[in-house]
């Protein structure tokens, strides 16, 4: 059996981090996340917010694991395809709201569960940025899927 990798969390060694850089990145993550809330147009900004969050997580080694949003949205799309014939657009909207709520709650929980060794004064902004980015990306995906389904329905009403 190979020896498992011992992470810094187990050893508990202090880590030197440039706090100015961390705070600036946290604020930028918030900004990008808020712009990313705009559906479709803000998708690039939302992606950059998540990218910043990942790199900050690597710098701070806070062990943050993002919730599996892609899996939820894939399940949501499958549910939309199944329930569309019964519930129509209202069903799509309900599924979207449900997934947004679920991913926000899981995101909040994952932030609570992280082990922050270095205090980040911009942690709240970081959280809000990530939350907004996930919400923006989710809504963008939902709009694209609904658009495609509507086009399919218009072209083939049967």
């Amino acid at each position, binding site marked *: *059996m190979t020896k498992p990798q011992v992470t810094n969390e187990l050893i508990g060694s202090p880590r030197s981090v440039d706090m100015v850089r961390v705070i600036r990145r946290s604020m930028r993550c918030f900004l990008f996340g808020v712009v990313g809330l705009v559906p479709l147009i803000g998708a690039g900004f939302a992606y950059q917010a998540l990218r910043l969050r990942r790199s900050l997580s690597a710098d701070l080694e806070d062990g943050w694991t993002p919730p599996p949003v892609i899996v939820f949205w894939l399940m949501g799309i499958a549910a939309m395809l199944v329930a569309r014939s019964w519930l129509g657009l209202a069903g799509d909207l309900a599924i979207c709201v449900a997934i947004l709520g679920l991913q926000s709650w899981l995101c909040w929980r994952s932030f609570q569960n992280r082990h922050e060794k270095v205090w980040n004064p911009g942690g709240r902004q970081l959280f809000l940025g990530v939350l907004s980015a996930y919400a923006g990306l989710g809504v963008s995906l939902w709009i694209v899927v609904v658009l495609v389904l509507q*086009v399919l329905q218009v072209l083939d009403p049967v």
Partner: protein
Amino acid sequence: MNLLPVAERELRLLARRPRTYLSRVLTALIVTVTSVGMLYAGFGGVLSAASAGQTLFLVLSCAAAACVLFDGALLTADCLSSEKREGTIGLLFLTDLKGYDLVAGKLISQTANQAYALLAALPALAIALFLGGVTGHDIVRMTQALLNGLFFSASFGMLVSACCREERRALTLAVFGVLAMAGLLPVLGWGVSLWLETGTIHPLFLIGSPAGAFLQALQAGLPGSPFDFSFAESLVCSHLLAWCFLGAASFILPATVREQAVTRRSGNWAARRWHGLVRSGAGLTSHRSYWTESNPLIRAGDRPGQRGLSMWPALVIFAASWAAGWALTRGQWFTLPVYAGTVIVLHGSLCYFVALHACRGPRDDQRSGVLEILLTTPLGDDAYLTGRMLSLKRQCFWPVLLVLAADFGLMVAGCWDAGVPSWEWLGWIAAFVVLAARLLVDLYTVSWVGVWQGLKAGDTGRAIRKTFFYVFVKRWLVFVAFMALLGALTQGRVFQAPVGAILVAVQFAFLPVMSLQYLCQAMSELHDDLRVLALGYSLSEGGEGWLRLRRCFNWFRGPPQARSRQALSQWQP
């Protein structure tokens, strides 16, 4: 001694690089995705199968020709001149190596990936065979024409690189030289044929150009060819010309290696006189000192060799060709295709020059050590970036104004043609506003992405290619992929309905927005990691996508701390 030892070494190196394999796989994937939409259009009944096949053949061939000509020139233009600037090529000539060894080695190392990518993309052309309208003979001809185009542009780039020493001059001469031979000459030939009313383009304009063989291959299925020469003649002539370029490069290279005395007098008489006049102007001097005091980097960007975008020669040639076209074909000149072509050429040239300057400045600073020294002073990272961007804006100001004025002129000409005020006027005004806004957004994005890639990529040519890929090519790929997906889902019916046109228009309007992601990334990395980028380290994480996917599934297994503890408890030495 081996035959062409440098070429052999470079080929061995290429075979060990993952990028060699990745690039051809990605190219094949992109071309296949592009073909899917056309396949559905053909089999879904939107177009007749034959016309879908011809359209697919036309679209793929034109895209491949543009890539091949641009890439070949850009990749080879600075490969020998950079060695000359760094003084390493003289050391190579101390060995038994000859000029042709170096030229062949550099040619192979710079263009092998592009040749592989082209070969990987060519089978997709054969999809047109299944749809009809294109024969196997046409595909073979097009394959030959495209490979010849790559060889021609790369050879011309090698010749320019052997003759030039300065990076900006080499890149500009190579790119615009190839574009002039492949684009300007056929257009001039067409203008002359219209003027003389001969109905055929004179061979002098096309036979030595890669465009001759390409147009012959494209026109194969159509009746009434406007050419006086055969495909084989054109192919052989342009191929021989390319070999002449390579021979000339091999011959010239050893002679240009010798160091020459650098003259202090740079620029021509008119430029020196103008600089003198500007320096003596009291108002302008105070204006400059204000800028210089606010950021010393602007002063660096104001040196004679750095001033302006140097796009005036290209603009003058373009204006002369435009005037010649107008004079030759008076009645047929003011048409929509001419307007569209003018806008594309002007905007494309401006974007190229802005990208060139954005990529070159930081790269020069990095190479000469200026950036390292600046970052150790109290100026800081932000001052460097602000200065670099302000300097770029000052360089771009007049060219941008000129291009916008030209756009405005075209709009006025369009309205004039329309006659009395009508809805057509509104269309022209809307087109002008949308195109001007898109140009400004694109230029801003190109500036930031160019500076970012200038620091990140190995050389300026590669940085320009990456900048163009991120800002312009990728968004078109997303556009085409989305339309192909819609086509696949609706079996091509979406292209028949009005909803398809609306979707295409909306997507086209939002295309620049897709590039904003890279604007954000460039700004973010430059502000945060300028010192890391200045050292030439790459910030990209290998296999990031796989890691992210794995992390996604790790979420179901609990937090990493618990996993580490569990693993430690299970471990028995």
